[in-house]
């Protein structure tokens, strides 16, 4: 190939659209190109253009608008415009060159031929057929290695059938059985049914330490009411379950038949496990300074998970598990200092902790609920407890909430009847501000304490909210108040009104709008899911959104969240403080393209919701 056309080839290969072509096709591409110059003020595309012509901007800039003169997009260097077909035209797009521009034009006949030959290339232009986000995600997470704990299922880790014993066998025979088989735990089976588990730990703690006779039945020291997993459960979820419940063994059941027993050791052998270590270390801390030292490892956890290819979903689960553990630990340390709580209570998390979507760059969003009581000093006790816990979290790097969504604020610390009144109020009189609060209330989750104080209230609120169209409408209104950007123009983020900014706030402009949509869908059907992805899947299941729309939104969410997680890892590694602000210049053209797709998905779903609102005046 001529060296000069090599420059043109390189330019083509750097564009998102052409980058999917194989090397040999890229080599042939420059010879198919027509170079065109359009001065500022020219109409774009020019009159003699044909449907399917592909225009790649080499220099200069173009504004694209719809018939209502609303800005649809702004093309700069490296951006591609495919001239739509007259029939299925995308609502008449017209443009104007706003800076003298040089284009590389791939004529329609050649473009069609390429689309025909390379389906990946065709997908870049075929809005109906394309599933770019899911594909992008696969490529994005291609780093996940074959046997990492993030990709294997529990079934793959089970190496032998579980050893079992009857509940009426003696403790001594159980111990002998364990020694012979060299296992640290036995399943206790009664009539072919799993009734419990007995471990080394149980022998030590419940028999040797208490002086119980070794001739007693093993059933007297076993743990009943077991958590189990299936062979299909992802190993990572099993790991999180164990960290959350503070247990070390999980029976694996196929149907009702035990097929294995996995331990934390099995999983730790499969790496990716500092979440478990971290939770264990946190549990051992007896003071706030000790806790703050241990939690210094939290950034490491995110680095490790992101680098081993964890999805944003997994990362959120892991970080939230750690922050939950910190919260529980602080509550316990608090009880030691302030005394046991005078009445039953529950510590609640909302925001990203409530939804289990945290990353290391997070602030506190929490609340407290306690049993109705006339007792003196109850308010005062919980005020001091909340202050202690939130200050402790702050010292451990989970900073105070700048918006004061925090149990140390009186509005977020209420009795059961106080919360019932407040939640009823916001649903009943839904103005903008009430619904901003409601968005928090419906993300609340019990972290520690009596879940019986809050759960019934939550389900009651979900049922009530569903019957209140004005509330649902205002929630939708609020969810639509933040629009995603249009895309990028050069090194800037281009907003819907044409404004340009030099950083992308990936949380505010991407993740929160999706979380807002998901919450509205959940409220419409009184779904009790909390995680945005769970809410979206639920919305697909009950038919609130179509399968494709749901899949696209999930893809957009995962993509944005993964990008944020990676951005934060880069910042930590560079010795900086992690944040949610991504400068577009750090993004590859491919990443920008996928981001733009993600924004497009959000904008479309917002538009649909807005249309439904306008159509009925409610949802």
């Amino acid at each position, binding site marked *: 190939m001529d060296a000069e056309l090599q420059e043109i080839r390189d330019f083509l290969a750097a564009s998102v659209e052409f980058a999917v072509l194989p090397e040999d096709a890229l080599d042939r591409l420059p010879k198919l190109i027509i170079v065109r*110059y359009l001065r500022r003020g020219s109409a774009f595309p020019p009159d003699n253009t044909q449907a399917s012509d592909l225009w790649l901007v080499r*220099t200069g800039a173009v504004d694209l608008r719809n018939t209502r003169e609303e800005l649809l997009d702004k093309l700069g260097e490296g951006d591609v415009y495919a001239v739509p077909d007259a029939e299925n035209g995308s609502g008449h797009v017209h443009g104007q060159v706003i800076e003298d521009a040089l284009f590389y034009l791939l004529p329609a006949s050649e473009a069609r031929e390429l689309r025909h030959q390379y389906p990946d290339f065709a997908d870049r232009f075929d809005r109906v057929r394309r599933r770019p986000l899911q594909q992008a995600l696969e490529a994005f997470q291609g780093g996940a290695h074959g046997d990492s704990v993030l990709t294997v299922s529990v079934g793959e880790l089970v190496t032998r059938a579980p050893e079992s014993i009857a509940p009426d066998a003696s403790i001594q025979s159980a111990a002998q059985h364990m020694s012979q088989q060299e296992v640290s735990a036995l399943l206790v089976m009664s009539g072919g049914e799993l009734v419990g588990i007995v471990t080394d730990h149980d022998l030590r703690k419940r028999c040797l330490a208490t002086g119980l006779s070794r001739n007693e039945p093993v059933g007297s020291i076993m743990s009943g009411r077991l958590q189990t997993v299936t062979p299909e459960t992802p190993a990572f979820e099993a790991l999180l379950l164990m960290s959350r419940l503070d247990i070390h063994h999980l029976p694996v059941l196929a149907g009702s038949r035990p097929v294995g027993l996995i331990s934390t050791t099995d999983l730790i052998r499969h790496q990716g496990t500092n979440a478990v270590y971290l939770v264990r270390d946190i549990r051992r801390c007896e003071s706030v300074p000790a806790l703050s030292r241990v939690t210094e490892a939290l950034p490491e956890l995110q680095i490790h998970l992101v680098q081993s290819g964890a999805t944003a979903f997994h990362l959120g689960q892991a970080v939230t598990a750690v922050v939950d553990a910190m919260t529980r630990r602080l509550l316990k340390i608090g009880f030691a200092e302030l005394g046991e709580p005078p009445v039953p209570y529950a510590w609640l998390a909302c925001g990203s902790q409530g939804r289990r979507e945290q990353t290391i760059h997070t602030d506190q969003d929490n609340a407290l609920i306690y049993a109705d009581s006339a007792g003196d000093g109850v308010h005062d006790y919980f005020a001091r407890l909340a202050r202690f816990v939130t200050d402790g979290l702050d010292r451990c790097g989970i900073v105070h909430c700048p918006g004061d969504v925090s149990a140390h604020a009186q509005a977020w610390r209420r009795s059961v009847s106080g919360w019932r009144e407040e939640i009823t109020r916001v649903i009943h009189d839904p103005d903008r501000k009430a619904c901003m609060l409601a968005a928090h209330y419906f993300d609340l989750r019990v972290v520690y304490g009596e879940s019986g104080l809050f759960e019934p209230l939550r389900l009651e609120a979900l049922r009530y909210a569903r019957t209140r169209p004005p509330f649902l409408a205002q929630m939708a209104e609020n969810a639509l108040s933040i629009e995603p950007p249009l895309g990028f123009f050069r090194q800037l983020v281009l907003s819907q009104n044409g404004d340009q900014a030099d950083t992308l706030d990936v949380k505010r402009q991407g993740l929160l709008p999706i979380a807002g949509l998901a919450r509205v869908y959940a409220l419409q059907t009184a779904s009790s899911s909390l995680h945005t992805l769970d809410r979206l899947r639920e919305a697909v299941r009950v038919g609130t959104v179509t399968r494709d729309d749901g899949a696209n939104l999930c893809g957009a969410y995962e993509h944005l969240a993964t990008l944020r997680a990676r951005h934060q890892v880069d910042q930590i590694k560079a010795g900086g403080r992690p944040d949610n602000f991504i400068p577009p210049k750090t993004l590859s053209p491919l990443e920008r393209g996928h981001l733009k797709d993600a924004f497009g998905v959000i904008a479309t779903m917002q538009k649909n919701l807005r249309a439904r609102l306008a159509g009925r005046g409610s949802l």
Partner: protein
Amino acid sequence: MIRPGPWLFRRRRRRLAERLPAGPLREYLATDIPDPGADCRETGFLAVDLETTGLNPTRDQILSIGWVAMNGMDILLSTAEQRWVRTTREIPESSAVVHRITDDQAALGGSLGDGLQHLLRAMAGRVMLAHHATVELGFLERACMAKYGSPCMIPAVDTLRLAQEMLHRRQQTVRSDGLRLGALRNQYNLPPYRGHDALNDALAAAELFAAQVSHLAGDHALPLHRVLHRPGTFW
């Protein structure tokens, strides 16, 4: 001054063609030049650049020839071509530094006649386009004289002269380096190119011309004769 105009130029080309034996130059001259009254956007051009060992046609040699055709203002990369010429003398170090063509590379090239033949075939029926076209015209004239014993009478557009005229018309003073290809391209928001490579420079001149026509004529027609380079001896 009243000039006989392109009519005379076209008649002389026809005459020359009749006198020449069959061959590339005869074919070239026998193909009429585009209508000088036609709009540039309807005219065929061939942007050409020569890399040479110096600027003096009588003393220096052609090292490579690059070209790309334009149909109106569409630059067709499918026609882009570059030919290296085997030199008979050593390449002076001073010029090798500029265009990075070394003796070894030049030794791999074809003969000058070969390059010339391909160029003339590509240029038939088109107007040549070059930046500082007198250099190209001078070297090609000399090559044709040497090879075919005849002048070649190439109708040409010079983007440098065009730029000068446009500046004069706006009564702007010209800075000494302001007429260089790179500087002019920059003025029209064209991308920077790695210069001193025949095809590259040909393409760079073609893009510059498209920009000049666009700014000169707007959406109106621009007759070819308004931009044609007019060496005094012809018309």
